[in-house]
Every structure is written in C-alpha cells, then in structure tokens.
C-alpha cells in the first residue's frame, strides 16, 4: 500500500482555475490509474467553460487548453467524397474571376451556387455537370471548388489583357458548343459583372428573351433566386439563364471533391472558329501607374496617417514615399497647417476603408476612430500606451513616431536617395 501524498501547492493550484500553474496540475487530474490498476476518469474535472458559459467536455483526447497549435483543416480534409461524372448531359457554366490567377472566396461561392443549381436539375445522377470556364491555364483548386469539367480558353484569349469583346466571342462559342443551362458570373465590375452582362445582352438580343441576366443574385432557394434591386427591393424570380452573383451567394462546396476534367477545345470546336468577327470596340492600353497620393483617401488601400505626435514632417512625407502609402492626417495636424484639409481622416474629414491604416502619433479622438471603422488592420505608433488609438489597433508600437518612421526608412532603403535627408533623420533619431 503506497501512501497517497498530497502536495498542498498542487492541490491549491488544481482548485484555483486562475492559478498560473493550474494547467500543469489540473490536466492529469481527470484521469488516473487507481491503486488496483483501473483507469479512473473524473468527469467533473473534465472540460472547460466555453465562451457561452456552458461547460464543454472534449473527448477527443487533447485537452481544450492545450489546443492552440493544430489547424482545424488538417483532420477535415480527407473526408471529402469523390464525385465522378462520366458523360455530362447538361452543363452549368461558371466563369470565375480568378484575381491573380487564384480562386477567390467569391469564386468558391459561385461554384457553390452552381452546385446548388446542378443539384436542382438532378445533380450527377441526371448528368448535370458544373463546368469552369477560365481564361487561364493553371488554376489550382477547381476540384475542391466543385467543377466537374473545365474549359481553358487561354489559347483563344490572352489572359492578362482586358479584351471583353474577345472574351465575349469565346463565351458565345462555348454557348454554342455546350449550351449551358445556366451561366454564372461574379457581379463585380469591371470583371465578371461586365462580361456576364455582355453575354446576357448578346443572348437576349439573339432571341433568347429569358437570357436577360439576374444581377446581384444573393440567394438561391426553392427553385428561385433572390436578387437585389434598386431602392431597397429584392426580386424573387425563376432562375435566369445568366446569373451575376454577389459574394456569399451560396456556401462553397466543402463535402465533395470533383474531377475538373479538362474538356478538349478542339473537340468542341465546330463552332469556335466561326465566331463573328466584329471590330474590337474596346482596346486595352495597359495599366496606369497611380501615385498613392493621387488616390482619393476614401479608396486608398494603405494609409500612413500622422497626428500631433509627429514633429518631423519631412521625415513623415519621406516615410510615406518609402512605404508607398497614401498620406492621411488627424484633425489637429490639419488645423495646425501641416496637412491639407483633403487629407483629414475621421468623421469630420474622410471616412477611409484602407486595408491597412498606420496611425503615427494619433491619440484617437472619437471622430477619428469613427472615420477608420472600415479599416481592416490598424497599426498604431504612439508614445502613450493608454491612448484610444492603441486600444483600437491590431498592432501597436509604443514609441516615438518620428524615430520609428526614420528607422523604417533606414531599413527599407530610399526610393529617391537624398543623402542630406537621411543624415537629418539620423540626427533626429539620436535626439529621440
């Protein structure tokens, strides 16, 4: 018989869930091997209080507290069901946006909608296939997204340039070859929203009155689609032949895996060569370099904003150039005349929607914070750790704004090297 010894520290830590070493002692306590060799489980010691205040017991083996590392995807992945479709009888065509050559979340939603429509027409049993029509060769993830077939039109239309008419001709040829039951586009200008409307107009004028697109479709239910109209109205209608769908129009495919077999263009080609030769009305002359300072503040993707905590304004402007950020300002900086009024961020200035907003030396007046509610990421550089901007920020650095900006410039190098400028910043740095 061994004597059961109690460690009072361990006991106290075990009882006190707030004790810093609680986990160390608490974890083994719910399961132990008793003296006679039987595994004992104490159900009361098990589990943790969830965010909704209800106690959850995790029986998967790992304790909740120790969970942080493993991603949820890992175990979910292999469970997808393989769907094969041999001889498609009908098609639902999806033309994904593919920004930067990858499927976006919006694209996955489109495939989700396509699958719903295909299921509504009988699904795989009835031979309804979802076909992805892309203007790019290598698109990863079409299988997971839910495409049974795919068509690669990159040999017909240049992928990179904007040639809506050539794309339209190619799609019109696909219409002739496959006659999809539905066409699904992303309702997004100037991408799928443009192309889809062109196709819809082409089909509608060719005599298919029902081809007039349903735009801004956001739900498919009970065999009908809901599309958002003007003036706070929704239109419920039969599923149109051409659908231009909003993001989150349907849940993306998550349970099945599809073949995404490449359809041979040449086999379909009896119509393709005969596409009508209209003179190109729209020619792409290429991207225009946009100076970050010229982008209206409300649209700028990346803003470096300065407030009262900035005193080295040359350094700040320089940092904005180095980072390639648009300049913004707090009201105080504008009032003090360091920045023009058009650059003022906040409820009394401009509401901004930058994906990244860096606030240097801005304490975060209510009006200012109201102006940046739409920003996805807020970075604060401020010497006062208790200010509201730091509380709002996703990432905050406590320190002198001028010095940090100078150091950033020094580390990133300088787009337009000016020797005098950098020395000046060094001096400031030392002083700070």
């Amino acid at each position, binding site marked *: 018989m061994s004597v059961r010894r109690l460690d009072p520290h361990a006991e106290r830590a075990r009882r006190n869930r707030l004790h810093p070493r609680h986990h160390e002692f608490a974890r083994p306590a719910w399961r132990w091997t008793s003296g006679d060799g039987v595994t004992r489980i104490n159900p009361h010691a098990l589990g943790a209080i969830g965010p909704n205040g209800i106690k959850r017991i995790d029986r998967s083996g790992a304790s909740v507290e120790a969970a942080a590392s493993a991603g949820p995807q890992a175990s*979910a992945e292999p469970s997808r069901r393989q769907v094969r479709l041999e001889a498609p009888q009908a098609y639902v065509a999806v033309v994904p946006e593919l920004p930067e050559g990858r499927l976006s979340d919006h694209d996955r939603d489109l495939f989700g909608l396509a699958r719903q429509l295909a299921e509504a027409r009988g699904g795989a049993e009835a031979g309804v296939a979802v076909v992805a029509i892309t203007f790019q060769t290598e698109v990863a993830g079409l299988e997971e997204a839910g495409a049974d077939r795919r068509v690669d039109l990159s040999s017909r239309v240049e992928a990179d340039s904007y040639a809506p008419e050539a794309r339209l001709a190619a799609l019109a040829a696909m219409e002739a070859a496959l006659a999809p039951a539905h066409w699904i586009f992303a309702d997004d200008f100037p991408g799928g929203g443009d192309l889809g409307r062109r196709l819809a107009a082409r089909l509608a*004028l060719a005599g298919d009155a029902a081809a007039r697109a349903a735009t801004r479709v956001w739900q498919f239910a009970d065999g009908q689609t809901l599309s958002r109209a003007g003036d706070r109205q929704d239109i419920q209608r039969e599923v149109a032949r051409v659908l231009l769908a909003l993001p989150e129009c349907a849940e993306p495919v998550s349970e099945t895996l599809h073949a995404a077999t490449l359809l041979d263009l040449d086999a379909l080609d009896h119509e393709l060569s005969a596409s009508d030769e209209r003179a190109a009305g729209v020619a792409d*002359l*290429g991207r225009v370099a946009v100076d970050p300072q010229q982008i209206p503040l409300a649209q700028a993707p990346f803003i470096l904003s300065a407030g009262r905590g900035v005193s080295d304004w040359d350094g700040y402007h320089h940092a904005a150039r180095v980072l390639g950020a648009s300049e913004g300002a707090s009201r105080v900086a504008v009032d003090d005349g360091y920045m023009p009024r058009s650059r003022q961020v906040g409820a009394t200035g401009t509401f901004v929607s930058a994906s*990244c907003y860096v606030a240097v030396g801005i304490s975060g007046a209510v009006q200012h914070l109201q102006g940046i509610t739409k920003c996805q990421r807020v970075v604060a550089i401020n010497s006062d*750790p208790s200010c509201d901007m730091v509380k709002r920020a996703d990432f905050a650095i406590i320190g002198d704004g001028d010095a*940090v900006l100078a150091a950033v410039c020094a580390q990133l190098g300088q787009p337009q090297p000016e020797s005098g400028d*950098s020395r000046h910043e060094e001096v400031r740095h030392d002083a700070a």
Partner: protein
Amino acid sequence: MTQPERSRNAAGEARVVALVSSGRHPVSGRAGRAREDARAVEMGLALAGASLHLAHAGDAEDAALPEYLGMFHGLDGAGGPGELSLLPMAAGDDAVPLLATWLEAYGANLVLTGQRAECGEGSGLLPYLLAERLGWAVATGVAAIEHCEGDRITVLQALPQGQRRRLEVRLPCLLCVDGVAPMPRQSAFGPSRRGRVEAVTNVTAEPDTLQAAWQWQPARARPKRLKVVKSTNARDRFKAAAAKSAASGGQVLTDLSSDEAAQKLIDYLRAEKVLPAVQPGEEGQPSA
C-alpha cells in the same frame, strides 16, 4: 483627375448624351440625382460643355430631373439652360427599345450613364442591351475621359483600390461611369429652374413582359455568414466555435528601440502583404 481635352472633334463630331435615372438617397430614400448618373453628367459637361443633352425614360414628375438640369452652370460659352428629353413610360415598361430608337433618331454617338440605376431593377443591364441593339461599343467602370479624337475616345477604367487601366474605345459607344469618377458639381437652383424638359411624343413604350413574372419584396438584410466548420470531429467543431473569442485585442509592443520597432512594423506589414515580400538581395542588408 485629368481634365479631358476639349478638342474641336469632341465638341464638333461627338453628340454627347447622358442617360439619367432617378436616384434614391441611401438613408432617406428620397428621389434625387443618382450617384453614378450625376458623375456621368459631370463627365459629359466637362467634355461637351453646354451641348450635352440629357435623356430620361420614365416619369416627367420625377424630382431628380430638375436636379440634373441644375448642373448646367459654370460652362464656357453662353451656358444656356440644360435640355432633357423625356421619354414617357411607366415603371413596368421596357426602356431599351425606347432609348435605342431615340438615340438613333437624335444621332448620338457618345452616351454616358451610370453603371447601375438606384431604383427599379437596378440591374445595370441597360447599357449593354442598348449597345448590343445599336451595335455600339460599351465600356464599364469609366473613371475619367482622357481625350476624344476622331472616332476614338480614351478613358481610364477604375480597378479596385484606386488603380486605373487605360482603354481606347471606338465611337459610337456607351460609357458606364463608375462611382469613383470625379464628384459631380453642385446642382444649383437657378439653372434647374431654367432647364427645359421636352417630352418626346413620337415613341410609345411597351411593357416589359419579363418583369411581370417577378415578385418584388422589401430587401431583406443578408444573413451574415457563419463560420461553419464541417468536420466529423467534435473537437474541431468545438475549437472552431471557441476560437473566435480568443483572437480579440491587438498586440501591443512596448520598450523597443526605434530600430527594433521599425523591424517589427516592417515584418508585420510584410506578413499582412501590405509591403511586398523581402527581395532576395535585400535580406542581408544591414540596418542603418
């Protein structure tokens, strides 16, 4: 934004028409200028001055019409009152044949309009249907007109996040003006009072048969997508459900030297893909 060059051709050859529709204020729902259409009118006024002609298919009593006419000020030359051709039709009628007929009769070769109307179906299909019917070119997302010369017009197309693409469009064409185009000028009471609305009488509208089958309903708020974790494993589902609460509150870094802080900031911006990733050559550069 670049001011369009008003070459002689622009004024001489192009007959510029702006198609306007009745807008709805996003808060009060009151009728007024539509956001994008007003920008189209602004673009037309900058290009063609007072010779810009407006057209509207719909109700003559619409409160938005005087507001568009009120934009005819500050123009060179006589700066006469604005003119608007009204093609009378009811709400359920099809505007496309009406406008197509009128545009051909008027001899327009450059038509500016917004991408999407703010009331009615608001599908944004009209310019495309018109273009298809008339055999015109159509360009969307127009943020600015750079210049107009001969039968070509060069425009800037708006891309997401303030980026631009230059397009050359053949006349006759329809340009759909994006909401990021230059702000429309103020609608002034005086010019709006003087503007002329002329009803076009020799056209008859036909009802839009397709619309009759639709059910209209007040817009519902779109359900917010829940983060659903499809997993056979209760543990994963639970963790996904519980994960949200853990990720609140920002990261606060204190007591760093400026260089360390700068490095952390750069790393963060790179991780968030705001700054381009490190170039191979840049890696070993000593920090100053």
